[in-house]
């Protein structure tokens, strides 16, 4: 097991890489469309690596859209805790590079779904560039998902 993966697994015990709010919002808009339907709480477990044994059943025709979702989450919603960043920052003023952890998380999600990294690299932007109906629906779903996350974080009374 690589050091990055080991650190991610350790971090997963105390931190949600994809916040609970984001998992539930994603569940509301895409559940059952690109991989097998499940509950909001299982989304939290899957996307936060609590259940590595879970096999994500992604139909072959949904591979590229699934890759896009995973890449989208990794880029826009994946976080590490402040505590983790603080521990790993060599210099106080140095920007912490989250990229290796983001990539490792993405690789682990692909492993759970049985999609190869090569396939991911070739097809992860297909959903963004193609105008097929399914891809358009996915992009709209992700826009709605973003709005919901934004609204959930909008105000704390």
């Amino acid at each position: 097991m690589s050091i990055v993966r080991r650190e991610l697994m350790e971090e997963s015990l105390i931190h949600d890489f994809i916040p609970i709010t984001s998992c539930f919002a994603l569940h509301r808009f895409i559940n059952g469309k690109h991989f097998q339907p499940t509950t909001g709480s299982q989304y939290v477990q899957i996307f936060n690596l609590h259940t590595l044994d879970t096999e994500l059943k992604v139909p072959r025709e949904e591979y590229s859209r699934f890759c896009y979702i995973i890449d989208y989450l990794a880029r826009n919603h994946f976080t590490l805790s402040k505590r983790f960043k603080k521990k790993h920052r060599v210099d106080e003023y140095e920007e912490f590079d989250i990229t290796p952890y983001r990539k490792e998380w993405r690789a682990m999600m692909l492993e759970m779904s049985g999609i190869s990294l090569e396939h991911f690299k070739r097809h992860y932007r297909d959903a963004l560039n193609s105008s097929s109906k399914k891809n358009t629906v996915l992009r709209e779903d992700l826009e709605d998902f973003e709005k919901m996350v934004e609204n959930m974080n909008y105000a704390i009374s």
Partner: protein
Amino acid sequence: MEDLVKQITSELSAAHDVLSGIVRHDDVSIEAKVSLCDFFKKHERVSDLVAYIEDNPTDISDIVMLSDTCSRFIQFYNENATVLSSFNAQEDTNAYLAPYKKEVDVEGKAWARLDTLMKRISNRMDSIMDMESERFVMLDKAYDRIQGLRDLHRFNQDKAYKILKEKEKLIYTFYFFELEMLVVLVQRLKDVCQLLSTRMKEGGCL
């Protein structure tokens, strides 16, 4: 600053009381239900709790107490899952905002009705050549009276709209809230507390 562990324990107990009220079919206020969402948003990042415990000396008994409170909460939720499935934040939000929306609507309609009436009176006044005539003077007075009323309804509508927006802002996050989110968070808190207490007992670093 209050001890974060004790604060979460106390807030979680209050959340448990709110759930008990829902299960007993008490008339649980919307504010109480919104407090569940507030608790969720406030403590969603469980790693903050770990960071706090690392930076502040915390008694292990407080962590165990929080863990127990989490266990009781989850047990209660599981035992009453059927009743609690009736929890619907969207319906509650809509019901809460309905009277404020109605107020805006009523005032808006009254304003529009009077505005139309004023236009009609104005048209009639335009058709009267003699501005000294009794009919013109009567219409002029009616116009002024209705204008005063219209402005009052306009003012009331603006006021009601501001109140509606304030209420919406207060409750906005709650609209998207699901009880399951809170349960997942409480389960996470419990897992983290158990992990921390085990490590503290072993004397290792967190």
